[in-house]
């Protein structure tokens, strides 16, 4: 399989997609939630998914994670069918409060991923400290999640995901519940973390500005059933900057286009 992907890469000159949806349809409880979705995400790409509430963004992400299996069609990861979740794919859930273990400290929560990866216990403390430092939580190792603010808890969840050393990072409205200032800070941190690790990202958000600010590409989903309604390439220079990027004419143009799309999709 892998060699077939390599060959394809050699022929087309394009790297094979890391995640590929092939005419994916998903039914849950007799209802078609996602219909005929085809999509490729290149290694290292930052893809953002937007769309009205209930259009199937979370469902699409769960398909990519292997938490759902398509009713028909295929989801491939590195050229192989996704049959179940795997450690190379990390998910940052929106509800960080539910995704962290309340009985483990920050260090313990990060450790969970290292334990699952089979890291010897002697090597863990150093790695945990490094990861907590990476997400801006040095010195909070001994705190329980309940003793941390929302922003800190989400950083902790990101640290645990990084501990998986994922090839792909799936994020479901990770900053949806945070205030604007915390949000912008975390956007930039995620961008630099991702740039450093080279991970592929699928990032779901309600916030059109956030999607354009972060993404290489933005996909807008149409509801009932969920399918792709618009696809925009974001040709904005990197590294992005909270002020100048958001004032860039291209940013404003994309924002307008996306805004009109969402407006139209809601009718």
């Amino acid at each position, binding site marked *: 399989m892998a060699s077939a992907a390599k060959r394809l890469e050699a022929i087309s000159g394009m790297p094979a997609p890391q995640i590929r949806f092939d005419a994916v349809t998903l039914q849950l409880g007799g209802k078609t939630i996602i219909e005929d979705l085809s999509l490729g995400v290149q290694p290292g790409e930052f893809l953002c998914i937007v769309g009205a509430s209930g259009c199937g963004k979370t469902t699409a992400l769960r398909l990519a*994670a*292997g*938490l759902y299996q398509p009713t028909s069609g295929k989801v491939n990861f590195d050229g192989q069918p996704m049959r*179940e*979740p*795997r*450690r190379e*794919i*990390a*998910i940052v*859930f929106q*509800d960080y409060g*539910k*995704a962290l*273990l*309340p*009985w*483990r400290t920050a260090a313990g929560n990060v450790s*969970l*991923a290292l*334990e*699952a*990866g089979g890291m010897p216990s002697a090597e863990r403390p150093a790695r945990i400290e490094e990861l907590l430092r990476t997400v801006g939580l040095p010195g909070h190792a001994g705190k*329980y999640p*309940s*003793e941390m603010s929302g922003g800190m808890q989400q950083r902790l969840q990101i640290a645990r995901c990084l501990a*998986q050393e994922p090839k792909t990072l799936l994020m479901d409205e990770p900053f949806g519940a945070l205030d604007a200032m915390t949000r912008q800070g975390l956007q930039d941190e995620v961008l630099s973390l991702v740039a450093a690790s080279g991970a592929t990202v699928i990032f779901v958000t309600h916030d059109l500005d956030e999607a354009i600010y972060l993404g290489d590409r933005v996909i807008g989903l149409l509801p009932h059933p969920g399918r792709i309604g618009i696809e925009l390439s974001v040709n904005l220079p990197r590294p992005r900057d909270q002020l100048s990027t958001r004032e860039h004419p291209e940013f404003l143009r994309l924002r307008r286009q996306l805004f009109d799309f969402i407006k139209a999709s809601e009718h």
Partner: protein
Amino acid sequence: MNRTALVWRLASFAVAAGFIALWQLIANLKLVSPVFLPGPDRAWAALVRGFSSGDLWSKLAGTLEHMAYGWLAASIAGIAIGAIIGSSRTMRTYVAPSLEFLRPLPVSAIIPVAIAMLGLTQAMALFVIAFGAIWPIMLATIHGFAAVEPRLYEVARSLQMSRLAVIFKIALPSASPDILAGMRLSLTVALILSVVCEILAGLDGLGHWVLLSARSFRSADLFAGVILLGVTGYVTSVAMSLAEHRLLAWQAAQQ
């Protein structure tokens, strides 16, 4: 300790002292015949006598042993069975109704059955105590396992954790507050049933001591035994609370 807590503590001591004084008064006035009711002074003397002669030590040890074995057996079986039932929706649907039928059965009802099957033996006592003490633990475990945040199972899946790791790192710790509360309730049940079994089967323990004292009208010894039982119940329950407090330190952080 803050001031209000201190005041409450003092008040509760005062109430206890008041009761003892009242008891002494009733005994001194011989409102109840001394054959049946010794004063606290005589009960205390009997207690001291019992311990210095060594008799009471062995009785206390006997009761503690019955209680501990029964309770531990109930805990292990209750947590294991509760975990199996609680972690599967199908099991919950099919088994829970039968449990609801069995649970309110008074344990005293199964004592004759146990005696018929096992005789007046230690094994019978162990069975009866464990059977009575298992319910609070098992039901609490079922509840605790059923209430694990589904999101955490998804985290476990995406980390490709093994089944065993999921049980020990996710489900058990998540259910631990429920399980420990069930274990605390069972402690009292185990003590009561230990005494009952000792009385019925004549096994070495405080229950037996109390029975013999009553039969030979040694009321002071009888009261010494009863006091000791009360203290045992209190001390074990306090010890359990302390253990809970330590094990669930993360919960205190949540408040």
